[in-house]
């Protein structure tokens, strides 16, 4: 005895509504999104955009076609109330149809494949007259070195507008860091797609901004505890501003006048006492001679940056003070476990006053 659960009619309109609804949301996407991959601001983000837009239209057409077939079948071939219970025609297949839905998608894909391969080589080649910046990914901050100018900086990378910038990237500088390095990824969506930074290897990425401004990004390869707190800022300056930025960054810091609070801070920076690690053992404030950065960010022109701690906090006196007093409360790190990040130095209030004053003087 066979029993059939009652066949009920069912409508799939909610699927359609959902699809249209999401399409509407797609179109509405814009607004205040500053890390928007769909809003290219330079040739190396425009090229991928130009490739994906036609593909997105084709995908949308295929989507509508297939979902349309499904919805049509469901409505048209539902068992009707007055059904006589007979079986429908038993069709086992159709060779011509199989060939069509093998060949047509293959042709569409082949048509997409050609510009894709061209695009791969286009965006990865080294541009002419590029400015080179070396990028080093640390847990959990990005460091930038300008070999042409011998500039070290962190979190915020300055570039000239309209000029291609060739990034030579690696993760962790084994010569100077307790961090043997993990993989990170450099991603500023409005300027270029992302590229991983791999310890022990050099990878390359081209970026270029066509308009002055501040472009946001962040590390896009999971790199452990504070992966979410590893942000990128690219400041694109017009030529004159870029030149003055370079001039400022290539000027050494001057030691504060004796007897000031800042001078006390400078002393503490180099010698904390009580067996505590001095700031200078990891951070450099370059005053003369060759620049030789430690394992932490270079602080010579700290106040020229708007944010710190992986660019998650504004560079304010209050934040700096909290950071020095209890770094883990501002950004989780693992100094106590494996030496990665900033240690808590048990600073007294007086020491904090002096060190913060010194930091604020590093313009």
């Amino acid at each position, binding site marked *: 005895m066979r029993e059939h659960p009652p066949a009920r009619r069912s409508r799939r309109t909610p699927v359609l509504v959902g699809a249209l609804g999401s399409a509407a949301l797609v179109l509405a996407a814009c607004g205040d*999104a500053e890390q928007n991959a769909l809003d290219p601001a330079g040739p190396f983000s425009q090229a991928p955009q130009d490739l994906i837009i036609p593909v997105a239209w084709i995908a949308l057409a295929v989507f509508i076609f297939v979902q349309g077939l499904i919805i049509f079948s469901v409505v048209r071939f539902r068992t009707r109330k007055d059904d006589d219970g007979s079986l429908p025609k038993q069709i086992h297949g159709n060779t011509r149809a199989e060939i069509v839905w093998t060949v047509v998608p293959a042709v569409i894909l082949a048509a997409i494949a050609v510009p894709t391969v061209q695009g791969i080589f286009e965006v990865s080649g080294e541009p002419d007259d590029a400015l080179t910046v070396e990028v080093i990914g640390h847990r959990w901050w990005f460091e930038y070195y300008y070999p042409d100018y011998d500039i070290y900086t962190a979190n915020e990378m300055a570039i000239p507008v309209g000029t291609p910038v060739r990034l030579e990237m690696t993760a962790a500088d084994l010569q100077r860091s307790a961090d043997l390095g993990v993989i990170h990824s450099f991603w500023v969506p409005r300027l270029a797609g992302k590229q991983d930074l791999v310890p022990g290897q050099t990878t390359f990425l081209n970026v270029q901004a066509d308009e002055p401004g501040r472009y946001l990004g962040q590390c896009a390869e999971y790199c452990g505890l504070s992966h979410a707190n590893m942000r990128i800022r690219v400041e694109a300056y017009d030529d004159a501003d870029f030149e003055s930025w370079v001039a400022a960054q290539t000027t050494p810091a001057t030691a504060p006048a004796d007897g000031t609070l800042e001078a006390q801070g400078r002393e503490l920076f180099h010698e904390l006492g009580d067996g505590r690690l001095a700031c200078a053992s990891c951070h450099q404030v370059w005053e003369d001679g060759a620049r030789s950065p430690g394992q932490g960010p270079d602080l010579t022109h700290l106040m020229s940056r708007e944010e710190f701690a992986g660019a998650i906090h504004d560079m304010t006196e209050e934040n700096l003070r909290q950071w020095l007093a209890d770094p883990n409360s501002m950004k989780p790190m693992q100094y106590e476990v494996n030496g990665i990040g900033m240690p808590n130095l048990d600073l007294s209030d007086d020491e904090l006053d002096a060190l913060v004053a010194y930091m604020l003087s590093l313009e």
Partner: protein
Amino acid sequence: MSSTTTERTGYAGRPRQRDGFMGWITTTDHKKIGIMYFVTVLVFFTLGGLESGFIRWQLGQAEQSVLSEEVYNQFFTMHGITMVFLVVMPLSAAFFNYLIPLMIGARDVAFPRLNAFSYWGYLFGGLFLYSSFALGGAPNGSWVGYAPLSTDAVSNMAFYAVGINILGVSSLAAAINFIVTILNMRAPGMTFMRMPVFIWMALVTNFLLLFALPIIAVALFMLNLDAVFGTQFFEPATGGDPILYQHLFWLFGHPEVYIMILPAMGIISEILPVNSRKPLFGYAAVVFAGAAIGFIGFGVWAHHMFTSAIGPVARSAFALSTMFIAVPTGIKIFNWVFTMWGGKLRFNTPMLFSIGFVSMFTIGGLSGVTHAIVPHNAQQHDTYYVVAHFHYVLFGGALFGLIAGIYFWFPKVTGKLMDEKLGKLHFWTWLLGFNLTFGPMHMSGLLGQPRRTAVLPGELGSTVELYNLLSSVGYLVLFGSALVFLYNLIRSVKRGEASGDDPWDARTLEWITPSPTPYENFHAIPTVTHRDEFWHRKYAEDEAGRVVPVPAGASEDHDPAAEHDEHIHMPDPSYWPLVQTLGFLPFGYGLVFGNFWLIGLGLVWLVVGMYGWIIEPLAEGDDDDPDDHAPSSGARAAASAH
């Protein structure tokens, strides 16, 4: 199933009890093992689902910290590991266990004790992974476990390396078991091209497991040795190569995607024809497309590494292979749609989930093609766009298909129907919750939100915040929907409506036998003369070419009285699969904590278990007993007369 010895001695007797607690833990019955897989999956699904709930809670608003970074990273890692290795794969294994012997007309799998070994390996592997929460913290290096982050002790990834390897051994044993079963134990007359598509997909899947698992095993052993014992396979400071790990991982990892999706494709290839009341459109095309996916699936792995250090030539090559795997996938989708075309569709719950599969999987397939546009992949990679994509494939695809299978074969297992009203409520809320959760992620990813971040940065803007809020609301819908499902499941087990033997007017051999399935599966092993054998026993064409039901007992080809098995041999229960797999625990903890005593204990335990297994006697007299399970000829006739 034959034996040449009548008497063997062992240092322990063989369990004979088939019921109660002992009956379950010593069972070698593929049906019981399938049920145990299923119940265990429900537990791990609950855990993995709760972990994702915390993820959605944390990301429901910008700059929120419900969980610390440390705990968040453990939760997202364990969510991935759980859903891949402890839910989708073993849920497929539950179907393989229960259905493969039934659909090919066999009484059990080829190696029943090895089958029990696979289950216990799965259970202990899962418990081992979850014990990490109590032993210094769960793995927090993401489910891909990229070195060298994963070799850093703070990532706790030794638990991952060892735990996944235990699960891998279990899956590898199961793969060999199912391949041998399908190749050797098909009923007389069941040629390859008469096999149900689910059996074909099971065969392809298990070959994928057979070839893919050894690769990840090597990678995980190297990772384990790097993390705990000081080797430097992946350590760049001493000449190791972190990219090597990525290649090994994805050489396994991409076939793994098909390992998760092909069983569900097999399931809906059974359900769509039954509920369209038509045969599968283009059987051969669907089968060959499945096999083609299996082959090409080994040649696309580096598309997970387009932004890694692989260079433009490799990027181009893998872009092409990735695009072309869309062709066989498309063939399947069109054949499913045209299976419905011209049919008389019945919209019961299994059918709804199957149609949902085709619809949702199409979306995941299309976003997959966009990943192959390599220059733009660099924008999509490691963002929520990718999270959306693979949830459309593995949740909208694999899980929808597997749930369709649960509703479809529930009567086979229990003899009862799941409640249709609750089933439909489950489907519509599931579909809504799923799209609400994962649909917006396409956009939040393209608008700049990377995955695996414990914080939703406020600077991404209010649009991204809105999408994340929608995703979190969608989670709540899914949560409620899952409760409806669980309630329906438990309620239907207890007091579901009786289903009869063949509630769906089905086509394949498992329905030829009574529901719930009797202990010996088939009173007589059926002889197969057609694809969709059972359907052909029920229907024939009359003189006018119209398809009409065959009156009960009228089929000359299949006179039930003529089919009579004199002797039914069923596998004996055994203690040893359970005893031996327990040895994985000391061995595994030894590998995680670098404790050679524990490693030694575990090894000895495993070897002793193996010897116990080897010299285990057959249950006394079993082989020579006359068949005492043979039902009366009347019952048999009722079972197969349609």
